C-alpha cells in the first residue's frame, strides 16, 4: 500500500476514534441518565416490552452511529478509503 494511503487511513482511524470517544462520553452523561430510569422500571414490570424496546434501541443506535460517522467522514473528505 502506498505511504500516502496509509497516512490517510491512519488519519481516518484517528478521527473516527475521536468521534466515538466523544459519543461514548455523551452517552454516559446524557443518554444513559435519560434512559436509565424508564428502562429499569420496564425491566421490573414488563420484560416482553423491555425486550422489544431494548432490541429497538440497539438497532437504532447501530444505524445512527454508522450514519453519523459516515456523514462526518464525508464532510471531512476522507470517504475515499471507505
Amino acid at each position: 500500500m502506498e505511504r500516502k494511503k496509509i497516512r490517510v487511513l491512519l488519519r481516518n482511524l484517528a478521527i473516527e476514534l475521536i468521534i466515538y470517544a466523544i459519543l461514548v462520553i455523551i452517552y454516559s452523561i446524557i443518554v444513559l441518565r435519560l434512559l436509565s430510569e424508564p428502562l429499569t422500571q420496564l425491566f421490573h414490570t414488563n420484560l416482553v416490552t423491555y425486550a422489544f424496546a431494548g432490541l429497538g434501541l440497539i438497532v437504532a443506535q447501530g444505524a445512527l452511529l454508522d450514519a453519523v460517522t459516515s456523514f462526518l467522514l464525508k464532510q471531512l473528505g476522507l470517504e475515499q478509503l471507505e
Partner: protein
Amino acid sequence: MEFPITGVTINPLLLAGIGFLVGILGGFFGVGGGFIAGPLMFWAGVPMNFVVGTDMAHMTGKSIVATRRHRALGHVDIKLGLLMVVGTILGVECGAQILEALKTVGSMDMVIGLIYIVILVVISAFTAWESLRALRMVREERIDVQEAMGFEGVAQRVYRINLPPMVSFPASGIASISLWVVLGVGFITGLLAGMLGVGGGFIRMPLLVYLIGIPTHVAVGTDLFEIVISAGYGTLTHAVKGNVDILMALVMQTGAAIGAQIGATSTRFFAGPRIRLFFSALPLVGALLVLFRLLSGGMLHF
C-alpha cells in the same frame, strides 16, 4: 457508573473498550466475538447470567454496523445468508435438545469441552495450512492473490451434488449448488453452536469458504449478516428471561461500532489468504479458553 438493571458499578469506558476490541475482530473476521467478550465482561464484574444475554445484544448492534459496511463494499450475499439462517435455527434447536438429553449423562461438560477443543484445533490447523499453501502458490505461480485457494477439492465435489432444488448465488459467484448443501452448512453450524453454547462464526466462516466455495471477503460479510439475525433473536429470548442489561449493551456498542467499522474497512487491504491466516489463530484462542475453563473447574486433571 452504576448500572441499575444489574446493580453493578463498572467504568463505561472499560465496557466500550471491550466492545471496541470485539468489534474489530467481528468486522475483520465475521465472528461474533462472544468467546472473548464473555470472559472479559465477567472479569469486569458483570454477573454471569447477564454476560451471555448482554453480549448477544451488543453483538446485534455491532454486526449491523459491520454488515452495512461490508454490504457497501459488496461483501454480503443476502440470499445465501437468509437461506442459511433456516438451517442454522433448526440446528440450534436440535443442538439444544441433544444437550438437554446428554445432561443426564455424567461428565458431559468435560466430553463436550474436549470435543469443542478438538474441533477448534482442527479448524485452526487446517485454515493455517491452507492459507499458507495459497500464499506460497501466489509467490511461486504468480496467480491473483485474491483468488488463491490452497484447497479446492471439497467445494468442487460439493458443486457436483445434483440434488434438487438447485440454487444460484450470483453475489458469491456460484452458478448452481444444491439448496440442501446450503441448509446443511447452516444446520451443522447451528447444531455445534446449540450444543457447545457458542456463536457459529468460528465454524461458519471456514465452511462457507471451503465447502460452499465463496470468496473470503463475502464469507465474512455474509457471516455477519447471519449474526445480525441470530443474535437479534437471541437478544429477544434472553431479554424476556431477564438476562439482558440494555444500558450496558448500548455502552459496549459505542465502542463495538467503531471497532466493527475499522475491522470491516481493513478487509479491503488484505487478500483472502491473509485474512484466513490471521483467522486461524482465533479458534486456538477459543480452545485455550475452554481448556482453561475445564482445568479451573476441576473437570480435567493432568
